[in-house]
């Protein structure tokens, strides 16, 4: 009896989880399907699901019209660069907060997080003027700096949480064995925090890859990443939904594939320390 209830519960939970999963994934699925339709089929009412003339014409048009590879490389460099720079700054910061906390450490952490509460548009003009004067407009290095600063609070917070789970005695033992601070962080702390750091890296790459406000406002032709690539296919006068969907699919495909292959690591990292 108990077993049958358990199976039923499992079934309900599974169905519920699948329903939520499908609901979350549906917009992406619909975008992918639309990218293979003609423009006329894309606006058909009632909508057509699979029974349409499949075409790759939209991908050919997008490829012909835009330099996808340049946008892709910009996205890779900007998201990768900002993540790397963020880690270089955040690892020592999180270490000091986790293992050598001061009286105001918690306040500093809260203050760092509070910077995320400021609407970005509020500082757009000052940052634009700074970038103009420093010659950083439409440069990849400029975007790496901005995205690092934006995501730094999240990286520090995540790393701080993971580091707190590591017993301080292990680091103390390393110190007693004569390890320098640098060796302690690189050779002792980092290997133990790998799952947490991996998920931090992955999450940060995803956040930087999808960031649209700054990447659209601070770039023109040279440093524009895939967010600008998608925006170039949006049109208020003219139905180009199929082409827009093709461009969107091309833009999200790399991050979708990366997320798919690293989902175990991502979940492991995000639930690290959640159950004690």
């Amino acid at each position: 009896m108990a077993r049958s209830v358990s199976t039923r519960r499992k079934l309900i939970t599974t169905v519920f989880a699948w329903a939520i999963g499908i609901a979350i994934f549906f917009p992406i699925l619909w975008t992918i399907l639309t990218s293979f339709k003609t423009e006329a089929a894309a606006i058909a009412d009632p909508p057509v699901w699979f029974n349409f003339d499949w075409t790759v014409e939209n991908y050919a048009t997008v490829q012909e019209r835009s330099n996808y590879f340049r946008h892709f490389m910009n996205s890779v460099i900007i998201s990768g660069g900002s993540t790397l720079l963020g880690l270089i700054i955040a690892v020592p910061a999180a270490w000091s907060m986790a293992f050598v906390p001061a009286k105001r450490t918690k306040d500093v952490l809260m203050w760092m997080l509070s910077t995320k509460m400021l609407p970005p548009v509020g500082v757009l003009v000052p940052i634009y003027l700074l970038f103009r004067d420093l010659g950083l407009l439409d440069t990849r290095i400029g975007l790496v700096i901005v995205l690092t600063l934006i995501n730094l609070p999240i990286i520090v917070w995540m790393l701080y949480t993971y580091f707190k789970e590591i017993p301080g005695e292990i680091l103390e033992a390393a110190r007693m064995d004569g390890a320098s601070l640098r060796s302690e962080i690189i050779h002792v702390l980092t290997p133990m925090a790998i799952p947490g750091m991996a998920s931090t890296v992955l999450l940060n790459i995803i956040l930087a890859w999808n960031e649209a406000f700054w990447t659209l406002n601070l770039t023109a032709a040279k440093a524009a990443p895939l967010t600008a690539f998608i925006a170039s296919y949006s049109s208020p006068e003219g139905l180009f939904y199929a082409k827009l969907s093709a461009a969107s699919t091309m833009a999200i495909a790399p991050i979708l594939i990366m997320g798919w292959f690293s989902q175990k690591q991502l979940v492991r990292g995000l639930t690290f320390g959640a159950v004690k």
Partner: protein
Amino acid sequence: MNTTFRALMGACALAALATGATSEIITVATVNNGDMIRMQGLMDDFYAKHPDIEVEWVTLEENVLRQRVTQDVATKGGQFDVMTIGTYEVPIWGERGWLVSLNDLPESYDVDDLLPAIRDGLTVDDELYAAPFYGESSMVMYRTDLMEKAGLEMPDAPTWAFIKEAAAAMTDKDNEVYGICLRGKAGWGENMAFLSAMANSYGARWFDMDWQPQFNTEAWANTLNDYLELMNNYGPPGASGNGFNENLALFQTGKCGMWIDATVAASFVTNPNDSQVADSVGFAQAPDNGLGPRGNWLWAWNLGIPAGTQKVDAAKAFVEWATSKDYTALVASKEGWANVPPGTRQSLYENPEYQAVPFAKMTLESILSADPKHPTVDEVPYVGVQFVAIPEFQGIGTAVGQQFSAALAGQMSAEQALDNAQKLTEREMMKAGYIK
């Protein structure tokens, strides 16, 4: 070693020379619409004529583009050398010295060939600050088969009373056919473009000569009540979220009897590849109420050169090429006359081949009937048919649009929406110093 060193030096010298001979790169910011994309495909002609200039495109959605170029031109960011800007921006930016004057374009450009209504909107103190790439007005697009079935005949220049009668006769909600489709989505360039133009034909205006808002007048009440009556009785469901694209999709799939919107839509609805009703579309001028002005707007996408650019000559060469008669002929030879950017030059409408295009005549008549300097019955202190060419208008127009869109969605009455519009416009105009 010596030979290697010399070879290296030679290579460096050659590289330096090659660098010196490389072309000048200009960045053009533009919107994603059919005409602009077509131009990007025809750039070989420009490069053949100007081998020393290279063009980099930044294509953005209209609202994003507007924000980006405004920010760049106001801060002299120097990101763009040529900007695609609307008729709303040109007089404001020109007056502030943000744009390079185009008065020195060569005689062969034939600036006098530009349609006066369009040219006037781009001129400040006799200085032309942008060259029109394509112009548009608004008109009635209707289903000839449904009109015939309803036993009515659309006049070339209908009245609002006729539109109401036709909408009632064409509506067949059981079969998802709605008599009329109009913009309902909030925004100064969305529902307010339509409603401001409609209001002109009802004798309403945004401001009197002392910049006092006029939403508390009978003319505005009549405008909004008639709009709501049309849409609530004969419009599609969920119309408060419909803009150009949503109505285009409805019309192309046979769900609208009539659609009053931009003349540029004509080429979409008559294209058999995309439209299910391509062979049964007729055109008429925007309606009036017998007061003089019709309910049509006037808009142009133009190419302007920001004052902050260091590449004025190259930018001018591009603007001249893209808005020339030769470019029109180039598009016609490659893509056909129906795809030529419309609404900017008189010579295009004198061309017999272009006259054969079904919507050419109505587009020209619509453009010529709009007068941005005298948009409505009474005198006004502003320029613009469906907008008011002051910097504050974007914010005010959108806020008023939200009130009217809410009225269409049934969230408030027409009286309440007009009252709110009056109050918020008064407040903003007071804040901006136009009134005390």
